């Protein structure tokens, strides 16, 4: 394990774990929800601290459609500006692709001379043919791999406005590759521009690749989004953060938040990816218990690890959290209090997932099913909302939104709804940034 530079300057990490209910049923299966909030340590002000170096591979689509609305021009501009924020310890490269792939700038260290040259070289890039997203992406990975910083943040930023139609186009295969590359040290973030790209693919690659997905509905946002992703890499304090839960092997755990989960025996590992200074992430897990004898207790031990040991090194040290449930009879179970905060987060999560499902169904022309997806969740939330104002508001919001799914939605609207939900599910702000401790 390699400590990050001056890791003793990392302060105030946090880990809180809450249950929706603390009793489980002795006769029959129980499903309970677990809400885990993780806050990455913040970097204490220290002029001497050196952040980990970054190694960024920009991969730009220059297929014909990118010529419209000056999309390519804005993307190039954003890359030039982003590169100016790097320092001589960092590396960058730029790959452009259509059906052919060009390494416009091979992996270089971000010296002032190279940064100045980047603008020159990019000026020559012009929009052309079709889209070999796979080949462009792999070439970007190759450039990043050539200067792989074992102690740094290595990330490819893949931008497209179209569908992958040359090279490997299979979603599962591309996601599998993104996951494999992540394990080998290269993360992938994706940027979809306009309405013609495939959000399931780009979102899937970013999730599997340990990066982030950005939807650029309005080309004017292009610069902001690329800048904020680059800023994110500059602020990383802990790489490949993992939430680790240990619990009896008979207990099943499923994630409701879209983080990669790996359950082996009694250990469940939830991969949260790289976290920036003070970033807050909420994870919701559904925990399923078999029946058991009344009075017996079942517990889970929750802790955080990361590749750099940043959480372990931060002050004050985080204690692992042990939280338990107890088997009780039906009457006890029905009468037990609920943690309304957990209920609210879980309800919000189901609502966002339902909206994404409804968007998919709407796109396939299955309007009735789209409406039913929304209505099903609305009913469930309304059923346990009781007097809770926030839950009732959420149910009302779903009721009001439902009719829009009953007929073909404009593609722009679909992408907006999908994106808003996907940000909410991943603890990111409405403009795609990492949420910070409030």
């Amino acid at each position: 394990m390699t400590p990050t530079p001056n890791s003793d300057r990392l302060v105030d990490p946090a880990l809180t774990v809450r249950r929706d209910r603390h009793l489980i049923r002795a006769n029959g299966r129980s499903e309970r929800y677990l809400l885990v909030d993780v806050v990455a340590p913040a970097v204490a002000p220290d002029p001497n601290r050196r952040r980990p170096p970054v190694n960024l591979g920009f991969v730009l689509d220059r297929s014909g459609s990118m010529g419209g609305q000056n999309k390519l021009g804005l993307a190039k501009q954003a890359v030039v500006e982003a590169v100016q924020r790097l320092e001589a310890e960092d590396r960058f490269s730029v790959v452009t692709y259509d059906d052919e792939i060009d390494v416009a700038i091979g992996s270089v260290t971000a010296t002032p001379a190279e940064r100045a040259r980047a603008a020159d070289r990019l000026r020559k890039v012009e929009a052309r043919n079709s889209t070999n997203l796979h080949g462009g992406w792999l070439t970007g990975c190759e450039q990043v791999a050539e200067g792989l910083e074992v102690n740094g943040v290595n990330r490819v930023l893949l931008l497209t406005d179209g569908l992958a139609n040359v090279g490997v186009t299979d979603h599962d295969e591309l996601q599998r590759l993104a996951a494999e590359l992540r394990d080998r040290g290269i993360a992938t973030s994706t940027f979809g521009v306009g309405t013609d790209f495939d959000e399931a693919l780009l979102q899937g690659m970013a999730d599997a690749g340990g990066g982030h997905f950005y939807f650029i509905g309005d080309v004017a946002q292009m610069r902001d989004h690329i800048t904020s992703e680059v800023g994110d890499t500059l602020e990383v304090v802990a790489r490949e953060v993992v939430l680790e839960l240990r619990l009896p092997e008979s207990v099943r755990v499923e994630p409701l938040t879209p983080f990669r989960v790996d359950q082996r025996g009694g250990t469940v590992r939830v991969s949260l990816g790289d976290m920036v200074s003070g970033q807050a992430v909420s994870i919701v897990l559904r925990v399923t218990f078999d029946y058991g004898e009344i009075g017996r207790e079942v517990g889970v031990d929750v802790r955080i690890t990361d590749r750099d040991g940043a959480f372990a090194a931060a002050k004050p040290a985080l204690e692992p959290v042990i939280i338990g449930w107890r088997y009780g009879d039906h009457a006890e179970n029905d009468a037990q209090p609920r943690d309304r905060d957990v209920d609210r987060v879980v309800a919000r999560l189901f609502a966002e997932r339902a909206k994404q499902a409804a968007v998919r169904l709407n796109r396939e022309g299955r309007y009735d099913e789209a409406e039913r997806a929304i209505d099903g969740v609305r009913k469930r939330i309304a059923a346990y909302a009781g007097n809770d104002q926030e839950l009732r508001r959420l149910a009302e919001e779903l009721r009001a939104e439902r009719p829009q799914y009953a007929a073909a939605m404009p593609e722009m609207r679909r992408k907006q709804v999908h994106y808003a939900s996907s940000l909410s599910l991943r603890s990111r702000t409405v403009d795609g940034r990492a949420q910070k401790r409030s």
Partner: protein
Amino acid sequence: MPDDPFSLSDLARLAGVTPRTIRYYVAQGLLPSPEAAGPATKYGEGHLARLRLIKRLQREHLPLAEIRGRIERMGDDDVRELLDANTEPPVQPAPAATLAFVRGLMVQSGVQPRVAESRASYPRSGAIFEPMIPDGFPTPALPPPSVSTPAVATPIPSVAAPVSPGPLPRSAVGDRSTWDRHLLAPDVELHVRRPLDRQLNKRVDQLIRIARELLAEEP
């Protein structure tokens, strides 16, 4: 990871057994005795691992006596190893392996990027070929392998500059070998560092011959 001690009830909850079972296993010699007795009794990670292994073996319908026979002489590490038998350790990224992996994927699917523009930068950015090419290549003295752009004429400090935490720079001096360029086809070159030993030299000559034949073929 620190070996945080557990109380009896925590240990029971984490392993999914009752405290009574734990006391019974200790009495039966299936678990080592805890460090102290009384209300302050503390159990460690080793206890948890052993309990998990016992439960797993029980699911395979092994009687307790048989289980005791198997695990009583095992150290904590053996127990953990057996528990993790199907757990692969996380891959630590290794630059050379990652690069080889990506290039393998590119070859597999015929991805052939053009690097014309950046090729001019190879001589200054030593890391480009770093993981694959041995000492001595590329050097600032070597002319760029393709059409040079005006930028190349300006001497640029190599990445060997002390500020760079990147891969170590390759030595350009103190090495009498030289790089030979062999043109294989109008747009394809092979670079060989000489001298080579005789065996390798023969094979490189063979490679050049085969490559030229291959590249001359009509597609």
